[in-house]
């Protein structure tokens, strides 16, 4: 999966979680004070991405070290999450 496809999938999942109520940009934060997603919605996004990964024939692991580490967390932005999603599709 290339990064553009991954971005499309990630943005679609976030859009569903936010019920289309916000414009989603690549640099939008997914954790921290400025995030539009509360913890419950973030989990819903992750579960949706698990399903979408399954459809594309790979396992998406959002409990990985990369997800948990604050400095390089894949939740630091929409773009970072898409990048990690694309990376995991190649493993």
């Amino acid at each position, binding site marked *: 999966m290339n990064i553009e496809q991954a971005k499309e999938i990630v943005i679609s999942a976030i859009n569903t979680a936010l019920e289309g109520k916000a414009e989603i940009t690549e640099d939008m934060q997914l954790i921290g004070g400025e995030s539009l997603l509360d*913890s*419950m919605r973030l*989990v819903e996004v*992750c*579960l949706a991405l*698990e399903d979408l990964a399954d459809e594309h024939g790979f*396992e998406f692991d*959002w*409990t990985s070290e990369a997800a948990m580490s604050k400095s390089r967390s894949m939740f630091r932005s929409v773009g970072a999450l898409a990048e990690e999603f694309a990376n995991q599709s190649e493993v």
Partner: protein
Amino acid sequence: MIIVTGASRGLGQAITERLIERGEEVIGLARNTSGLNINAIECDVSDYASVKNASKEVKRMKKPVKAFINAAGVASMNMAVTTNESTVQKLIQTNLVGTIYCCQLFAPIMLRQKQGSFINFSTIAVALALKGESVYAASKAGVESFSRTFAREMADFNVRVNCIAPGPIRTDLLRGITDAQIGKITSQQVIQKQFQKSDVCDLVELLLDEKATSLSGQVLNVGGV
């Protein structure tokens, strides 16, 4: 199905047997599954990669998980000053860190279902501050604290988290403890008697019952404190 850690011995084994008796499908997690007569997955709860592998295996089964019971544990009855470093590490790593690993890595299955129940194990030694159990009690106090907070994190997803805190139940963990020592402990309980594994199994059934859906973030001290 219901997942039970420490399913090869002690309380975990008793709980597994009780649940199978009542017709539940149980998956036992144990470090050594050879000779076990149940559906089991080899798993060392103190090892993150091992727990992660077990959670992946369960996820691939694509079956609803009704409950996860963290019964694996180790004990050491010693004063802090006579507990060696490796024992301290082992108590914390297995009892506390192991419980955390299992909860965090199996939670996504229940989050997806928006249903489920975690039952973790503490000890009455926490509430009674029992002399000679400082490190063991500290590991279990951590389990209680983790469980109470984790319960709040899971509540939005209709997942409940509770602890059972038994007193001195006759299992391998109490090897070498005399009846007199047990009597000293039970005399501090509200109900001053030694409870059995079957009493703990009854509490597990109680927490799994549909009528217990209002219980979360609680510590049930067996015998009362």
